[in-house]
């Protein structure tokens, strides 16, 4: 089957939903937008995130994941924006041709005028870590376990060790405890947690679950089912210290060891990928290196808060609307450059004349800092200094330019973002 559409959105999670609404609110007709979702319902990963804490920025109240999703799904339905569920995108090329398949439509070749990538991210697995040992049942990524418990209604195990202290791991430590399992330890390779401080407090401390920093799992035991793991302390170069080996019996090992933007489909369109974020290189409109293909949400860079995913995706939706109605000018883009302590900045490029007060730059730092400043330099000249009481790898920061700094940024060919430590801060 052949099909044509103005704006195709790959993924019906928080990013895809907000992007669709962004495009619709910019004047694109509902029937000219199509959201392609592979699950049987819209909402994406929010549906399994039943804990509260979503929407404080966006709605000024604390919602659970399903509630947050439902607000957007309701708007999409009320606007009658097109969507198809149980539909998997198999391919995308740089001509914006999409191939998707679903039980109701079969294979469809969809020609889009603009494409918004909103596929989210995937979890890193045991294979990515190379943990030695046997291959029994009982090893899950935290998100998979979360789906089992919160959507399918199954308990994946009774005695749990969690490797990695990302937010999903912390949330699952609490969830498993509430449902009657014993969470024996959360091991974190680094000397700090990558999860939010509030989650360590309310998910671990509340239930006296030990957080073992600078610890990792060195062996998995068990033939049919996990029977235990051997953990060890690691030295400053992250190598396990031999005489610290300790056996913990358990039937389940959960991994919460990082998320990777899911860009398999994007690669078909030969989109330039940022080696740090593992997402596309985008400009301030969230347009990728291929004209008319946009990216937003966790497929672009992994966010901590869905509120920022929504905001970014609305922007991508508005940009796609602008692209299909009036197009973008051919002016040159300038670069943002992360340096000295700043790991990445999104967007990586910007159109000087088009950045305005609403242009926000997102960044992440490489280690924990206290009382430092984030400096922004335009062609080498300091234009903005933002004091940070603390900055952590687990917390995405944002900075927006105003007034005089903004004027200078508009004219500059590059903006450097860097962390300054010491007396002058």
């Amino acid at each position, binding site marked *: 089957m052949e099909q044509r559409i103005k704006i195709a959105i790959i993924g019906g999670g928080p990013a895809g939903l907000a992007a669709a609404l962004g495009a619709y609110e910019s004047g694109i007709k509902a029937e000219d937008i199509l959201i392609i979702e592979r699950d049987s319902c819209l909402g994406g990963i929010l549906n399994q995130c039943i804990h509260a804490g979503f929407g*404080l920025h966006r709605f000024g109240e604390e919602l*659970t994941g399903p*509630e947050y999703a*439902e607000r957007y799904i309701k708007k999409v339905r009320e606007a009658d924006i097109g969507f198809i569920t149980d539909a998997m995108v198999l391919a995308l090329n740089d001509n914006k041709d999409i191939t998707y398949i679903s039980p109701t439509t079969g294979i469809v070749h969809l020609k889009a005028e603009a494409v918004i990538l909103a596929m989210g991210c995937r979890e890193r697995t045991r294979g990515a870590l190379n943990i030695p040992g046997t291959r029994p049942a009982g090893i899950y990524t935290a998100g998979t376990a979360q789906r089992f418990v*919160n959507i399918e209604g199954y308990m994946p195990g009774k005695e749990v060790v969690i490797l990695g202290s990302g937010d999903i791991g912390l949330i699952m430590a609490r969830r498993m405890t509430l449902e009657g399992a014993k969470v024996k330890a959360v091991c974190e390779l680094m000397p700090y947690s990558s999860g939010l401080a509030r989650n360590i407090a309310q998910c671990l401390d509340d239930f006296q679950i030990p957080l073992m920093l600078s610890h990792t799992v060195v062996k998995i035991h068990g033939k049919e089912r996990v029977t235990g793991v051997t953990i060890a302390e690691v030295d400053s170069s992250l190598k396990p210290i031999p005489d610290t080996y300790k056996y913990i019996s358990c039937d389940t090992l959960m991994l919460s060891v990082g998320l990777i933007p899911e860009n398999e489909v994007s690669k078909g369109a030969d989109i330039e990928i940022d080696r740090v974020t593992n997402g596309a290189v985008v400009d301030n409109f969230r347009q990728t290196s291929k004209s008319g293909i946009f990216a937003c949400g966790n497929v672009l860079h992994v966010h901590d808060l869905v509120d920022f995913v929504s905001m970014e995706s609305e922007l991508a939706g508005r940009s796609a609307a602008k692209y299909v109605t009036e197009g973008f000018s051919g002016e040159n883009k300038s670069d943002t450059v992360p340096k000295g302590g700043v790991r990445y900045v999104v967007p990586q490029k910007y159109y000087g004349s088009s950045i305005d007060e609403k242009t926000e730059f997102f960044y992440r730092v490489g280690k924990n800092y206290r009382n430092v400043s984030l400096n922004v330099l335009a062609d080498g000249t300091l234009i903005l200094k933002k004091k940070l009481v603390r900055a952590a790898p687990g917390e995405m920061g944002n900075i927006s330019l105003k007034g005089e700094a903004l004027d200078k940024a508009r004219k500059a060919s590059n903006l450097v973002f860097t962390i300054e430590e010491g007396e002058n801060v």
Partner: protein
Amino acid sequence: MKKTFTCVVCPIGCELHIEFDPEDISPEQIKVSGNSCPRGEKYAKSEIVNPERTLTSTVKLNSKILPVLPVKTDKPISKDKIFDAMHIINGLIVSAPVNAGNVICKDFINKGVNLVACRTVSE
């Protein structure tokens, strides 16, 4: 007496420093610093007087679409009653259709606190 803990009100996670007299834990007498908003002060005081948490979980659901329904307490409940609450939640069965916001269990654990549905399931 001095205590330090992380604020859980929002994702910023301020480090709160609390000074109080264990003999007199009336909220006016508790000194809070480190918070960056009034909600942090309120949280710190409640954490000394009566720690509370919003509980979220799932209940069994009779539905063609989903086997379990996400639920939450519409107000925070005492932290020490969380496992009692889980015991009740695990005995509840709900049938579709259900709308997000529907009360699943009225006066749940504490009077005035309801257990509500977090998701709409049509059938």
